[in-house]
C-alpha cells in the first residue's frame, strides 16, 4: 500500500506571462524530487500549484492511493524565509497548524513535543524566533511541517537563506529525518550540489515558460553519496546537468536583456 503524487500537464500563466507549460511528473511514496532550473523558470510556481496556493491555468495534481491516515495537511511547505510568527515561541509556531483541528489538548501537546524532539529543539520550546540562528529557525520550520504529518513535503529553496556551513548542517538534518521515516517531497533549489545530494531524481526545467527539460535519477543511493567510490558517478551527473542548466540560464539572461 502506498500512494503516488501525479502532476499532470500543469500549465500556468500570470497576467501576460506564461510561467509553466505542460509539466508532468509522478512521484512515488518515499521519493524526493529536486526541481532545478534558471531563475524565473517557474520552480516556485510549480510548488505553489501542488500546495494549492496557486490555481493552475490547466492541468491537475492528484494523490493516488492511500495517504497516511493521521496526516492533517497532505501537502506541507517548508519556506525559504522560514515564515515563522515572530511573536510566538518555538512551540507556539510549531503548534500553530494544529490549532484549527479538533485535537485534544493532550494530543496537541504530544505532537508538538514529538516534532520538537525530532528536530532537536526540545530545549528551545519557549524561545522566540529572534533568539535563534537562521539554521535553528529553519529547524522550527521543519518541525512545524512534521507536526501535521504531511504526505508530501514541499520545500521551496529551504536552505538558500542560510550560510554555507549552516546549509551543510541542515542537509545532514534533512537526511537524518528522511532516513528515519519515509519522506516524499519536492525540493526546489537553484543549487545543483544540493539537488544532487538531497534528491532521488532531479528535474531540470527550461527557462520561461518552465517546461520539463529532463528528469534524471541520481545513480547513487542517498546514504552512500559521501563515499569516495560514489564521487565519479556524481561528478559526471553534475557535469551533465550543469551543461543543460548553463545553456538555459544563458538563454534566459539574453531574453531578459531583450525584454
Amino acid at each position, binding site marked *: 500500500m502506498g500512494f503516488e503524487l501525479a502532476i499532470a500537464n500543469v500549465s500556468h500563466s500570470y497576467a501576460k506571462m506564461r510561467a509553466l507549460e505542460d509539466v508532468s511528473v509522478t512521484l512515488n511514496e518515499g521519493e524526493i524530487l529536486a526541481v532545478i532550473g534558471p531563475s524565473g523558470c517557474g520552480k516556485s510556481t510549480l510548488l505553489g500549484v501542488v*500546495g*494549492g*496556493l496557486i490555481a493552475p491555468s490547466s492541468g491537475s495534481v492528484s494523490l493516488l492511493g492511500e495517504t497516511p491516515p493521521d496526516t492533517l*495537511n497532505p*501537502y*506541507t*511547505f517548508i*519556506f525559504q*524565509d522560514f*515564515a515563522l*510568527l*515572530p*511573536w*510566538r515561541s518555538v512551540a507556539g509556531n510549531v503548534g*500553530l*497548524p494544529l*490549532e*484549527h483541528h479538533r485535537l485534544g489538548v493532550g494530543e496537541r501537546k504530544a505532537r508538538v513535543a514529538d516534532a520538537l524532539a525530532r528536530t532537536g529543539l526540545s530545549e528551545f520550546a519557549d524561545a*522566540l524566533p*529572534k533568539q535563534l540562528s537562521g539554521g535553528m529557525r529553519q529547524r522550527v520550520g521543519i518541525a512545524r511541517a512534521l507536526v*501535521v504529518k504531511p504526505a508530501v513535503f*514541499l520545500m521551496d529553496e529551504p536552505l538558500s537563506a542560510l550560510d554555507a556551513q549552516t546549509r551543510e548542517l541542515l542537509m545532514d538534518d534533512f537526511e537524518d529525518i528522511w532516513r528515519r521515516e519515509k519522506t516524499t517531497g519536492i525540493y526546489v533549489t537553484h543549487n545543483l550540489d544540493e539537488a544532487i545530494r538531497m534528491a532521488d531524481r532531479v528535474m531540470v526545467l527550461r527557462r520561461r515558460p518552465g517546461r520539463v527539460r529532463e528528469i534524471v535519477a541520481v545513480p547513487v543511493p542517498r546514504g552512500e553519496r559521501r563515499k569516495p567510490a560514489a564521487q565519479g558517478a556524481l561528478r559526471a551527473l553534475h557535469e551533465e546537468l550543469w551543461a543543460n542548466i548553463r545553456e538555459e540560464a544563458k538563454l534566459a539572461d539574453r531574453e531578459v536583456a531583450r525584454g
Partner: protein
Amino acid sequence: MVDMSVGGTRRRALVSFRGGGFAPVSITWISVLFFVLLIGFWQMASSLGWVSGLFLPSPLRIVDALQRLALSGELTQHVTASLARIGAGWAVGAVLGVVFGGLIGLFSIWRSVGVPFIAAMFPIPKIALLPLFILWLGIGEAPKIVTIALGVFYPIAIGTYAGVDNVARTLIRMGQSFNMPFHHIAFKIVAPGALPSVLAAVRISTSIALILMVSAEMIGADKGLGAFLLTAGNLMQTDNLMAGIVVVAAIGLCISGLLTLVERSMLSWR
C-alpha cells in the same frame, strides 16, 4: 595624517581615521542640565525684572498657582472633566478606527469605499466640524466627544490598514498552506502582525486627541482644561494660564509614558 615613530624610523599610517561621527546618543545629564539652566534663567529673568510678570510669570509663580488650584479643588474638577472627554472620545474613535481599518485591510469592497473616503475626510480640521455637531447633538458632552473621536478615527484607521498591508505575504501564504480558516489567519497572523503599525498610529492619535480636547473645550464648555485656559487668558491671569498649560503638557507626557509601557509589553517579540 598621523605620524608614528617606531624604532627610530618615522612611519606614516596608511590611512587617517575617518570612521567617527554619525552616531548621536542621548546623554542624560546634558538633557537634565539643559532644563535646569533653562528654568533657572527664566526664573532669574523674572526676578531681576527683565520680563514683566504679567506677560511671562516666573516658574515659582506658576508652581504657586498650581498649588493654589490643586488645594482649592478647582484643578481636579477641570482635569476630571477633560480626562472623561478625551477618554470617551479616544476610545470610541480608536475602536472604530481599528475595526474599519481592519476591514479596509482585508476586504476589497471596504477598501474601495474606505480609502477614498478617508483621503477626502482626513485633511478636514475636525474642530471646524464642532459647530455642526453642536447643531446636531445639542450643547452637551456629545459634540465634543464626537469631535475627538473623529480626530482619532482617521489616523488609527490608516495606521491599521497600512499595518495589515505590511504583514509579510509569506506569513499569510504559510497560514493558507496549512489550510487555516480565514478568521484564524486574520486574528492569529494578520492582527498581531499589524499591531506595531496600529500602536504607532495610537501614539499619533493621542496628541491629536489632546489638541482637539483643549480646542473643543475652548469653544463650548464651562468645565475642562480648555475652558479654564480660555477664562484665565480672558482675565489676564497668566499664572493660571501657564499652570493650565503645564497640566496639559503633563497629561501628554503621562499618556506617552503609558504608551511606551504598552508597546514594550506587547511588542517585546521585536
